[in-house]
């Protein structure tokens, strides 16, 4: 077999196309701010294979793409946070630090010649003491980080969903409004269902009003039904 010269630009483009294709196959995830924190909403039929999860006291994680890859990243993130919090202090664990670590890793894998890039997109969200200090970082397969102001959409059909969210987003929305808007956004995805059953949604919040140090809380089917019913 003869080796062919491939220009670096072409190589990067091929790798990006490859990663994008993998990501586009999956359903999207919406991470959106509301008055009391940050809400993470995923279209996910599995009850046990999570797309959104807890990393640390104030930090949540959402991902789309290849399950084994983002699961690996999720566990690495928990290890990163727990190790830092144990060796220093719980308040020294930040979402920005974790987003940086993920960015480094994804960027290195993307540009390293030997292996295939990760087919994942991630969100690292950190709830602050007030709405001003909430942080949402969106990370793409090539390690670039976007600091999102109001919401983040990851997955295949982000444009359509983002358009819906951008049109209807209001500052200081209640959890009910945020969840309903997120679901409305997910429904707007091309080829998406008109109705998404409660069982096909995975919803969690980083709730700053929670008394416990751990602000991450999953929203069960009953509570979710109530949130969606008040429309």
């Amino acid at each position, binding site marked *: 077999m003869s080796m062919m010269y491939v220009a670096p630009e072409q190589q990067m483009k091929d790798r990006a196309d490859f990663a994008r294709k993998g990501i586009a196959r999956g359903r999207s995830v919406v991470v959106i701010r509301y008055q009391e924190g940050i809400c993470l909403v995923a279209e996910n039929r599995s009850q*046990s294979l*999570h797309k959104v*999860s*807890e*990393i640390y006291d104030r930090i949540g994680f959402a991902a789309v793409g290849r399950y084994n890859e983002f699961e*690996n990243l999720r*566990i*690495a*993130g*928990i*290890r*990163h946070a*727990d*190790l830092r*919090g*144990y*060796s220093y202090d719980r308040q020294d664990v930040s979402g920005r630090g974790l987003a*940086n*670590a*993920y*960015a*480094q*890793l*994804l*960027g*290195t*894998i993307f540009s*390293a010649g*030997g*292996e295939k890039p990760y087919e994942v997109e991630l969100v690292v969200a950190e709830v602050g003491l007030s709405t001003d200090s909430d942080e949402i970082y969106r990370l793409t397969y090539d390690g670039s980080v976007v600091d999102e102001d109001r919401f983040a959409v990851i997955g295949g059909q982000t444009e359509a969903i983002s358009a819906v969210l951008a049109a209807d987003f209001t500052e200081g929305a209640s959890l009910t409004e945020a969840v309903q808007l997120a679901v409305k956004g997910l429904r707007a995805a091309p080829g998406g269902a008109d109705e998404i059953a409660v069982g096909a949604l995975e919803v969690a919040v980083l709730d700053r009003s929670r008394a*416990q140090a*751990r602000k991450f809380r999953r929203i069960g089917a009953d509570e979710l039904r109530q949130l969606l019913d008040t429309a």
Partner: protein
Amino acid sequence: MVSDAGLPPQFLRAGSSSFTEFLASVRPELLPKDRDADLSHLAPHGTTIVAATFDGGVVMAGDRRATMGNLIAQRDIQKVYPSDEYSLVGIAGAAGIAVEMVRLFRVELEHYEKVEGAPLSLDGKANRLAGMIRQNLPMAMQGLAVVPLFAGWDTAAQHGRIISYDATGGRYEESSFHSVGSGSVFARGALKKLYRPGMTAEQAAMAVVQALYDAADDDSATGGPDLTRKIFPIVMIAGPDGVDQFDEAEIAAMMDDVIAGRMNRPDGPEAGLR
């Protein structure tokens, strides 16, 4: 090859859900264990912890004193901690090592819960704690033993449970109440007379507070209520709704009751002869 930029390769390696094992492989120096010399005369010791089950949970209380030989090292040390949402751990023995052990234990439980997406069973938690005590055995032999008392709400069995340990990590299930630490003999004697099955949370809390008073009465290393400084025992419960702590005002009111009662009868409530 995965580069070590950002997240080191060990972070991505498949492994168990145990934070302690992960820590031992990447940063073993952070594990709470011995350095070298005999420090027993330097380290403050925590004293008495009491726990009792009741209908709908388990209550645990600890006095606030740490001693160093005949000195009082600290008057307001916290020796009862929530280890996670449904369990409590109280510490007696070398305070520094014990507090550090509790810190690691809490991360251990939380780490497992986050990685696995489900909490450990109460037995699983109790066994992990036993393992940590066992690792401290070399220190225990130098006079720095840590003897925790573990209690929690068993979400599967739906009742409160108490588990005690010895310095070698031996694990023992206690049926209704237990006490550890220097004043434990007196506290357990008092609880034996005060405890009865089917108590409410408030009654159980009163029983353990009375038992601590009796421990402080006869053991110089156990601190009694400090009325001038308003330092009272820490009392926590674990039940189906999770861990809850009696706030200071509640404990102060309870303490007033105890002291008022003891003005008439200094030895505390009277148990029937038959």
